[in-house]
């Protein structure tokens, strides 16, 4: 198989699908089977990833994880030669095998563009969308002197470089100048040795020959269509495809065992975050919704969004729950974290605890206090990652605005964030602290506090972080990917209903009426209140809300609205704390309110005591 193209299958004949995700520490395998005409995820297994010594072969971990799945499923998936058996016959083998990878730190890139807010931003979006971590962005206006930029390029050891700049027919000089900074810097690739640094040129097409002249044979230069052919338009797909191809042909090929893994897989191996973006885009498109996904890991937090069909992804490289936990505390500050803690804690001890978690990242909270604190840190990590995402996911900057008399009082300019909480329909959380919280009310509360959804938002979590597997599967068998996503991947937590508008002490925020098969409630929400109504999985309820003036559910200030809410393991949450969410500054009042939220949402029920 060509490593960069998927095999063609008779999709009706596909009954057993095997998928793996080779993470930095764990390789996860899942089995998808056709049961009564529907694709369902049936078994999962995991094993340590084996890219490092002593095994130094990623397929060892894959075989171990697949063997575990096979044992659980009663299906022989690995043959005597240690290879995956295909096609499926009786209780042996599988029809399709696919994989994603983020082992060895994933794909690390450097991008360059002429203007930070324009071509460099487009290049960064292309790299992030392809699933890369962007180590640095070099541009003409990044306030560094040329020799400082060159020094930085020399220090970095990226897997590849994406160079953009200029619209087609636009600036030539600045684009070639960037190439002239990169070429003499002689950037060293991460894997060293005989590996040639891949450089993708996706800028002004009229200077391709000059750019080619600038680089010597020490690099592998690939040219693709401009990421910003005109100011008003982005064209990220060719650059993203080139990144994926080079990722497979160069980066992966130099990682231990990957050549074998590439030959096993029936579809190109994708960087894990790229695959997650893929499935989220597919869902948003199919359902016609705006969706936001977050994956909070030990070192990084990835945020994916699809608003009005536009996909964006950001990686907050140093916001995570173990390796980067200390950085979360440094960025957010301890008082901001403690505003989510309703128990008495000693700040000095907490600071030392944070550092101890950083140096021993695999530990888990044993006590209630440790859990409450860890979840408070998670809220801040998610909040900060979301702020970064909103700042990045904007309309194109530098586009000339056509303004009419009607726009006289409008402050809208180019470069506005396209992420709008009131338009958000589905919020999906994944990552250890969200997925493995002892109860799902805690997961829902963390997501609401961090993302502050407005209007009506459905909350869900990725049950076993299956989205990467489904992202690749969507390329080979979209129907199977969608069926599994809907039925097995997502665990619906419920619905959050909250108005936009400032908190006003002692005032009524909105009136509500809830009607459903098992629920019939009405009442008033005071500012600062939260209420939880049980609403089972697969159950729906109609909610009519009448906000007071100054509060908006999406129809305008004080305007009545009706929603169709979806139930889940948590239920229906009404949130009248106001947006943006503020907590009372006075300590006693703050503690009283925080405690009331904890109790109302049943976050830490007493039966969890020893």
């Amino acid at each position, binding site marked *: 198989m060509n490593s960069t193209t998927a095999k063609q299958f008779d999709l009706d004949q596909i009954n057993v699908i095997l998928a793996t995700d080779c993470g930095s520490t764990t390789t996860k395998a899942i089995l998808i089977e056709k049961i009564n005409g529907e694709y369902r995820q049936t078994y999962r297994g995991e094993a340590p990833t084996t890219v*490092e010594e002593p095994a130094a072969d990623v397929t060892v971990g894959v075989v171990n994880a697949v063997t575990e799945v096979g044992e659980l499923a009663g299906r022989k998936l690995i043959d005597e030669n240690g290879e995956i058996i295909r096609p499926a016959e009786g209780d042996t083998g599988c029809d399709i095998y696919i994989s994603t990878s983020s082992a060895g730190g994933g794909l690390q890139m450097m991008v360059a563009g002429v203007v930070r807010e324009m071509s460099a931003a487009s290049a960064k979006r292309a790299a992030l969308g392809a699933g890369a971590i962007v180590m640095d962005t070099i541009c003409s206006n990044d306030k560094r002197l040329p020799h400082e930029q*060159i020094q930085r390029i020399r220090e970095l050891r990226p897997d590849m470089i994406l160079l953009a700049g200029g619209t087609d027919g636009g600036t030539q000089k600045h684009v070639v100048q960037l190439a*002239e900074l990169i070429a003499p810097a002689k950037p060293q690739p991460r894997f060293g040795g005989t590996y040639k640094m891949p450089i993708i040129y996706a800028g002004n097409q009229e200077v391709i020959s000059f750019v080619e002249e600038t680089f010597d044979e020490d690099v592998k230069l690939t040219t693709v269509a401009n990421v910003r052919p005109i100011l008003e338009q982005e064209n990220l797909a060719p650059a993203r495809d080139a990144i994926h191809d080079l990722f497979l042909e160069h980066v992966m090929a130099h990682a231990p065992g990957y050549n074998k893994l590439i030959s096993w897989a029936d579809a190109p191996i994708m960087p894990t975050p790229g695959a997650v973006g893929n499935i989220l885009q597919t869902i948003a498109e199919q359902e016609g919704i705006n969706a936001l996904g977050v994956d909070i890991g030990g070192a990084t937090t990835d945020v994916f969004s699809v608003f009005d069909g536009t996909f964006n992804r950001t990686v907050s490289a140093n916001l995570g729950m173990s390796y980067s936990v200390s950085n979360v505390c440094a960025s957010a500050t301890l008082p901001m974290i403690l505003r989510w803690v309703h128990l008495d804690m000693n700040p*000095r001890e907490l600071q*030392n605890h944070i*550092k101890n978690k*950083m140096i*021993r990242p695999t530990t888990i909270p*044993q006590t209630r206090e440790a859990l409450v604190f860890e979840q408070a840190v998670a809220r801040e990590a998610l909040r900060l990652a979301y702020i970064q995402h909103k700042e990045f996911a904007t309309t194109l900057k530098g586009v000339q605005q056509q303004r009419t008399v009607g726009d006289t009082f409008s402050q809208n300019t180019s470069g506005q964030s396209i992420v709008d909480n009131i338009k958000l329909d589905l919020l999906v959380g994944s990552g250890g602290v969200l997925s493995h919280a002892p109860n799902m009310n805690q997961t829902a509360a963390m997501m609401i506090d961090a993302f502050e959804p407005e209007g009506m938002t459905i909350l869900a979590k990725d049950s076993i972080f299956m989205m990467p597997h489904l992202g690749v599967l969507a390329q080979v068998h979209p129907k199977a990917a969608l069926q599994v996503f809907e039925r097995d991947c997502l665990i619906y937590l419920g619905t959050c209903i909250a108005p936009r508008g400032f908190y006003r002490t002692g005032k009524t925020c909105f009136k509500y009426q809830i009607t459903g098969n098992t629920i019939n409630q009405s009442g008033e929400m005071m500012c600062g209140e939260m209420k939880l109504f049980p609403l089972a999985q697969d159950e729906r309820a109609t909610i009519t809300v009448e906000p007071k003036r100054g509060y908006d559910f999406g129809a305008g200030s004080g305007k009545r609205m009706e929603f169709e809410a979806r139930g889940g393991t948590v239920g229906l949450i009404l949130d009248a704390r106001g947006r943006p969410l503020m907590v009372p500054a006075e300590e006693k009042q703050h503690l009283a309110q925080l405690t009331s939220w904890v109790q109302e949402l049943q976050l830490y029920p007493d039966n969890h005591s020893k």
Partner: protein
Amino acid sequence: MAKAYSPGLQISQRVLHSSRRILPIPGDVLVKVGDQVSSQQIVAQTFMPGDVTPINVANQISVAPSEVPNCMLFSEGDEVQEGDILARSKGIFGFFKAEMTTKTSGTIESISHVTGQVILRGAPLPIQVRAYQAGTVKEVIPEQGVVIESEVTFLQGILGIGGETYGLIKFACQNNEQDLEADLLDESMQGKIVIGGARMTGEAVKRGIEIGVAAIISGGMDDEDLKEILGYDLGVAVTGSENIGITLIITEGFGDIAMAERTFNLFKEREGAEAAVNGTTQIRAGVLRPEIVIPLSEHTKPDTTSETKSETEMGILEIGVPVRIIRDPYFGLLGSVSQLPTELQTLESGSESRVLEVILESGKTVVVPRANVELIEG
């Protein structure tokens, strides 16, 4: 799930240890297999391409970029010295010529007719790699470096600040539970590897820097002190390039925590010996812990060889093995595994986890998640 716990830090009285000493780019290896090397001996060296200075000649002599190649007084590959006239414009009818002189020396790498830029490369920068570990050259990797092997006393810490350093081991604390205060350091410790006990205070570190101590090793330190020493809050545990004038290693963790008695006693056995210390830490995939390597000379080698273990023998969690608890509420306590129940148990936090039972040194028995202990290896 048999390995759902932190692999412990290695503390070995005697172990056959090897260090890979590799150049960042290809170069020359200066020793051969079988050579005896000392810790500070240079074993490989190379030259990095020199620093690059871009010069916008077109702007400086006010000509179009396409005219720059014709205005240049030097060609690509020529060497220029500081003060040399690099380019001269043609002027108008031979008058009003503009010229520019270089402010740095170097070799002309390229002259661009598109941007009007000249790239000047400075003299190559030497890079040298020292042996670090005194011993025998076991392997030469052509053009890259060497592997050095010797029997050593080897200790890992949990976190370090600063890079490689060398010195004789000298004690400042009487026992492993004594905090390392500033008044315990004196001028005799200049250039030494100073061993403390429990927490090293911020004042002690400052005093160490004043005196010129090579490294301080102690049980713990306070987060606030570290922040003050570094001048910033350490966000991720990727260290080694700090330039604070000293190398610091904590062996246990943050807070008031005593150095493990076994670690302290092992240092005591090697008091006065020369050690190589590296504070470089990377707690990511491919984890690196800070380390102290103390080569054993012939007369210091203990008679027994029972302490020498291969890597594969270590890391099995079973009943009776010594462990350290690495998370609250029992953080820092030592004991041994007394039970390994297989079924999941609900913790006070509400999470379900695989646990183990530990008999603490005090005789008390506690139940902790398996993820919250580390083996005491060696």
